């Protein structure tokens, strides 16, 4: 079978592009690091790719607000291509700064016309923090009962209840502008990962590292093809990237659970 092609979109200040490319390659994709200017100039076509990844970093220095400038650039200069990509239900992932971009351009949570209904703002601790966290995958809703609907979230297929990943950000607190937007995300079952304490229980700081509403660490859109998260799965694809040896981190052999997200994307794109 032909390997799907993943585009790792980069711009000034992108800095997780190499490892994101490596993760997609490990997962079985052909991956290219492409500067946004190449697409704007028409040298590279987005439609030639089956997966779009917005990696972590500080796009344009996070001037104004994290991810805001790149979000506007995507929305206003590549809006049509992005929309086509999205509505062809091709996998789109935004990690850390990439998640901030997806939320700020409105493709997440994915309202009509990409209206922005949420943001990622300054951590409660008011500083950049780099640490490992526990993540609980989508399941029971935050209010003790399940979501009303279930999104086809292929990204977390086959993953265990709780995994560990590193976070590194200063603006990772997920908030919605209106509580109705939050309820909608919850009712739709769009939350993919929540921060948790060891054992999967309700976290306090530092297990919820930024004060995110409902401990939200990552969400997808309603069709499930767009996924954004603050933690860095690309930094935990090999067993020995972990802070301590733990069998629970391992899929099989030397692969760690972070890799599964990339494998799932490749599978969905095939």
């Amino acid at each position, binding site marked *: 079978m032909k390997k799907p092609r993943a585009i790792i979109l980069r711009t000034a200040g992108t800095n997780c592009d*190499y490892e994101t490319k*490596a993760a997609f390659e490990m997962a079985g994709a052909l991956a290219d690091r492409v500067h946004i200017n190449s697409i704007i100039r028409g040298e590279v076509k987005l439609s030639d790719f089956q997966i779009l990844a917005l990696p972590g970093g500080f796009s344009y220095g996070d001037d104004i607000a994290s991810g805001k400038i790149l979000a506007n650039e995507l929305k206003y200069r590549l809006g049509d291509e992005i929309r086509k990509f999205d509505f062809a239900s091709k996998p789109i992932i935004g990690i850390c700064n990439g998640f901030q971009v997806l939320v700020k351009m409105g493709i997440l949570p994915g309202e009509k016309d990409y209206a922005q209904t949420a943001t990622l703002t300054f951590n409660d601790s008011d500083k*950049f923090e780099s640490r490992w966290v526990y993540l609980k995958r989508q399941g029971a809703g935050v209010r003790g009962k399940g979501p009303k609907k279930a999104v086809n979230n292929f990204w977390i297929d086959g993953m265990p209840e709780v995994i560990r990943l590193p976070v590194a950000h200063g603006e990772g607190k997920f908030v919605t502008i209106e509580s109705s937007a939050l309820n909608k995300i919850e009712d739709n079952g769009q939350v993919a990962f929540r921060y948790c304490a060891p054992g999967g229980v309700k976290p306090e700081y530092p297990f919820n590292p930024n004060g995110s509403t409902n401990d939200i660490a990552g969400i997808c859109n309603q069709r499930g093809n767009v996924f954004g998260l603050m933690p860095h799965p690309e930094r935990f694809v090999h067993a020995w990237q972990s*802070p*301590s040896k733990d069998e629970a981190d391992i899929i099989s052999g030397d692969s760690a659970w972070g890799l599964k997200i990339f494998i799932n994307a490749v599978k969905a794109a095939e």
Partner: protein
Amino acid sequence: MIEKNYVNILDLNDNELLALSRENVLSLSLEEMKRIKSYFHKKGRNPTDMELETMAQTWSEHCKHKTLTGIVEYSFTDEKGKTHKRIFNNLLKETVFRATQELNKKWCISVFKDNAGVIEFDKEYGIAFKVETHNHPSALEPYGGAATGIGGVIRDVLGVGLGAKPLANTDVFCFGEPELEWSRLPEGVLHPKRIAKGVVSGVRDYGNRMGIPTVNGAVYFDEGYTSNPLVYCGTMGIIPKNKCFKKVLPGDLVLVVGGRTGRDGIHGATFSSVQLDQESDVTAVQIGNAIVEKKVLDTVLKARDLGLFRAITDCGAGGLSSAVGELGEECGVRVSLEQVPLKYPGLKPWEIWISEAQERMVLAVPKKNKNKILKVFEDENVEATFIGEFTNDGILTVMYENEALAELDMEFMHKGVPRPTRKASWTQKHEKAGKLPAKSSAGKDLKTLLSSLNIASKEWIIRQYDHEVQGQTVIKPLQGSDISKQGPGDAAVVWPYTIVKNSYKGIVLSNGLNPEFGKIDPYWMAASAIDEALRNAVCVGADPSKIAILDNFCWGNPNRPDQLGGLVRASLACYDMAKVFGTPFISGKDSLHNEYAVKGKLYSIPPALLISAMGLIEDIRKTITMDFKSPGSLIYVVGETKNELGGSHYNKIKNIKGGILPKVEASVSKRVMSSLHKAIVKGFVASCHDCSEGGLAVALAEMAFAGNKGVECSLFNMPANKMGNAELMFSESNSRFVVEIEADKAAKFERELAGLNFVMIGRVANGGRFTVKGIKNEKLIDEALADLHGAWSARLAW
């Protein structure tokens, strides 16, 4: 039309020459001013302002290291009062550099000649390492000073050979005590806590934006650094072996890439060679913009891989004058400054020429690649401008709108600097053991030590740095399985898997620093720093036979014989230790004149030598961390504990004067490290921690709370040699490790270490108690793990 400004020096007498140097922050000595005068006398004219400024930059201490490469008349008086004399014709060449030459390691690729040192990584790649200081700027403007410090050292690595890709940063700071009372703060000085917070924020904002993980570091607090904080910034990078050297050819074009030139950072190079005072000019500090530098990094590496340029260097100290001057040293160069893109109009030509505006690199580009290389930069919105051409006339010609504002012989610029003779002296004092308190609670002392400034957790700082970007940091700065309760690692390991495919080889970074020892004898400070840096690297699994080290001297005024005497002592130790350990120095830097004058009072720093080590590990899957792993395993102390409380943290918290400094028996230490390394490679060692600040007690406590495991130990089996519990627990003897060995591997481990000093002192335990019995097996320490961790983590949790 620009006016050519001549500065009259031909008619000046000695006093007037010195006054001219001082008033224009040229930092040139009388000898140097006279040499310049005679050069221009022969030319039959006065220098232009541009020429004088160019000479000042090129001959600055910062660029030329005149003291360390100068002539030193050294007089050493031993304990018995006998004086020994020695003359160094070039201190650096006869100590630090000589060790490297004599060791002549074939894995050293480029040492002491480029912007960073380079050693071999594997068949295809080399790894480059450089550590810089940015002290003066950080004293005046901590945030900007530190940010541009890290920005500068990243460009050094980007400017080594044809450009290395940065993989990791290291940061080591020395600050005044953060709880200093305001009444004790010298006038005109920022409070140490403000400096500390500003410096950390500066490194965070610049380093994180560059996408380079900050993986290793240290912070040292001492009142002596109140007016002159030290900010060491280091970068390690990877470079293809066939890109390790540069060669400029006449006819190549001069290309300036990156940031625009402004009025910031004027006289940065020369101002770093004078003591600070209240009048020190903050415009000497540069203004940084990390994203501009990130774009430069991305595009330069792209141009490198396309083979589009023949040489590259960074615009650091001295700005274009140094960068262009250095690249053109062998052949000559002609540039036109009106081509240089400016942040705003109004700069005088000499300001454009010496501005240290950030994020600029200078490249030598073959004419045929002119358009191709411009496209690479244009494609990613990086400004790139050709400003001149390399010649074969051996002359530096600086033009502005068709007027030649400087014409200087390269030979004179680079080789004409007079070599000063300085006097150095050192009087050795007799060391004797300090008087220990008759009664003291070891448990309480341990908690006091854990919460003392130089031992307490630096988590507040560490977590603000992204230490895992690039995904390659396999051994991280904080260690332990409970991610909310970790302990301090000894060294970091970077596994460059995104660059080097199908390999498990890794790079180890560590450091050693102990200014407290330097207050007694800089020789043993230097020796201890080297031993410590190596120890730290060995702890995680580095091969001790293939470690390269860097020296960074931060000293006071070298014109004072006692200051320079200490510097000579430290340099001699560098030679002695490097030779025995077989660890070459590959790069270094010195920052002298770390002094502050106010109201007739002079504050000089405690001399500090930072040793940064870069080692290799064959298989990163065999790295180990410092947290205790399994209850029931045995705890060993490897290496001999001696009565060496001099300069120790115990003496500091107990206010004990004197004491015997830890020495280094390098040949013994080398054997210990080599055997321990073999044991680690063979998989006998479960965890390993360096025994340094706070001695055995602190090392044990850190391993215990990082692993969330109890400890049951006794000093009963330790060879006491007339020492008491306090000496055994808190002495900071070098060359020691605490290791955890699973019971079934103990026999094999002991065989590996046969003939060396080691002793089994107890076991890792279940539960949350930390208990240590004394030399007579009496009760000594019985503390709750949580209390120890609490004492360690609370002090600096800002």
